[in-house]
């Protein structure tokens, strides 16, 4: 599976775990509730840790633990739910998170430029055939009005 990360199409190394999957070796991404439940065990995980945030979740709930995560994945169950944009803005703009911020789910290629402006630096598209278009879209605008995070 390929993704866009830091303006390049690369192979994805992350394994996304469902809440009832056993914890596996390697770089794993878990849900916020899994993290809260199995924190004691996960903190000693040998690979890298990522956490996936849903639209209804609140960024301040993981603020104290951000140092544990090499990646925060933000899910878009539907493209029209814009909460993930604010989550990313707060992560990078307000909580100083400098790791990978990845968009996952049903977002559109046409949203990739805005996503990158609020702090997303990685994009996992539902349809990998759209990766080249998404990469090009990162340059839709050469100018902006607002300060970028």
């Amino acid at each position, binding site marked *: 599976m390929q993704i866009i990360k830091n303006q390049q199409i690369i192979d994805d190394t992350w394994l996304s775990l469902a809440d009832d999957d056993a914890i596996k070796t390697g770089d794993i991404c878990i849900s916020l509730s899994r993290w809260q439940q199995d924190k004691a065990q996960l903190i000693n995980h040998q690979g890298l840790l990522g956490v996936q945030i849903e639209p209804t979740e609140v960024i301040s709930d993981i603020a104290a633990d951000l140092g544990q995560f090499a990646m925060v994945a933000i899910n878009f169950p539907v*493209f029209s739910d*814009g909460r993930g*944009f*604010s989550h990313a*803005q707060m992560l990078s703009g307000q909580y100083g998170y400098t790791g990978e911020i990845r968009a996952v789910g049903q977002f559109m290629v046409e*949203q990739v430029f805005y996503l990158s402006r609020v702090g997303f630096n990685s994009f996992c598209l539902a349809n990998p055939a759209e990766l080249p278009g998404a990469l090009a879209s990162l340059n839709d605008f*050469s100018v902006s*009005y*607002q300060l970028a995070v």
Partner: protein
Amino acid sequence: MYQYNEHDQTLIEERVAQFRRQTDGYLNGSISEDQFRALRLMNGLYIQTHAPMLRIAVPYGLLSSRQLRKLAYIARVYDKNYCHVTTRQNIQFNWPKLEQVPDILAELAQVQMHAIQTSGNCIRNTTSDHLAGVCTDEIEDPRPYCEIIRQWSTLHPEFAYLPRKFKIAVSGSLQDRAATQLHDIGVHLVKNAAGETGFEILVGGGLGRTPVIGQVIRPFLEKKHLISYLEAIVRIYNLFGRRDNKYKARIKILVKETSLAKFSTLVEAQWQRIKDGMELSDDHIANIKGHFKAPAYDDTAQAGSAQLQTQLASDASFATWFKYNSLEHKIAGYRIVFLSLKAPGIAPGDLTDNQLDAVADLADQYSFGEVRNSHRQNMVLADVKQADLYALWQKLVQLNLATPNIGTVTDLICCPGLDFCSLANAGSIGIAKEINDAIDNLDYLYDIGELKINISGCMNGCAHQSVGHIGVLGVDKNGIEWYQLTLGGSSDNQAALGERLGPAIAKNDITQAITTILDVYIKQRQEDESFLSMVNRVGMGPFKEKVYANN
């Protein structure tokens, strides 16, 4: 007015290219119907009953003569020779072809115009007082702050997929002519006890299905914090506004359900996190203000006074027009002139290509090359020398733009209704025409005096019927058009929502019902009492009794 720099121009040209690609993507099937819907709406493009409708942004209603000529050209080449002024001071075209929209946008970009965020669940065109900078009751010109908000909100990456649309209005004067209490955010320029000018911020107002009057969330905000504070409000709304039901998704519902106190605590906490580092510098504000300097007024303009008095005394039609369609200007020797877009037989707010061109010429000749759209769907030439009024009036008469009815019953606000809009339940333009036909006696019109009728063809309330002195709302009953009347609404300082008069009225009887209401007013008013004051005094009773007398 604000002039684009290279940065602004590049941005809108890149937007044209982006929208061209999105339209191509839709036409070739790589962008789905559902996806394109969100993308086209964010660019003001609706799919309507007959054809797409394209809404063009007119920031705070201000247009240059060059822009008017471009709109005339677009009306001629891409549409059916006319356009429509909206209640958000924008311009709409009703007949463009979908595949030509990118070309229209490219034309608009040549004159610093676009259709960005004129629809969709994003921050819409910021509206303001159509008398900004020229009225006599101004604390400070609101337009520089509107422009600052325009720049901040344009293509704001975080706020393009809000729960619902988001509207901001700014007023700089004592009298609120921008309906700020009925916006998602209302901004008032105010002075604090120390004499400093800043902003009072209102939140959670709005019209539509559930009209609500906004509440003060911050009595005084220093100017430098304007953008950070707006950003904090919109972020809290984006995160917590309801997304489960589109009729409960506006910020007014969030404020109501969480309570103003709790909502402001959330906003305050967010604002404290971001405000340092987002301040507007004095230099930046001064720079934007520099775009709104007063024009080079003629010091000798007062000299025309005697001549004007003679003209007023010798020509009764001119005097009537002067009384109703012009207003006092803050500079002696000048007047503010309204162009009535409510001539009998014309859909309220419509202008032809030829009228647009002619208005551009008049603006150049008489008003420093600028025109404003008002939220009551008229146009304004803001800076006319009194010595020029007679000549200007004669030209406006020829253009059918001098109907002396500003502020009266026939100066009604009206949405496109069932004739054009796919959301509408009932016609509105036809009702406007019937009312106009019924009140063809000018003496009667003037006797009624100030009265605002607002007609919307559906619950979405584009014509702000709930704040009309008389509100008319089209409803559908088993495929038949009916109308619900409300009385006593107002969008000015004493904002109020109209009260329902009684059961809906059939289409055939609606004009009769309205003229009955007017008759009750004429017969039962006290001396010098306006319609609105009388409604507030007597309530629905006397009106109800007569309107429903035969049922």
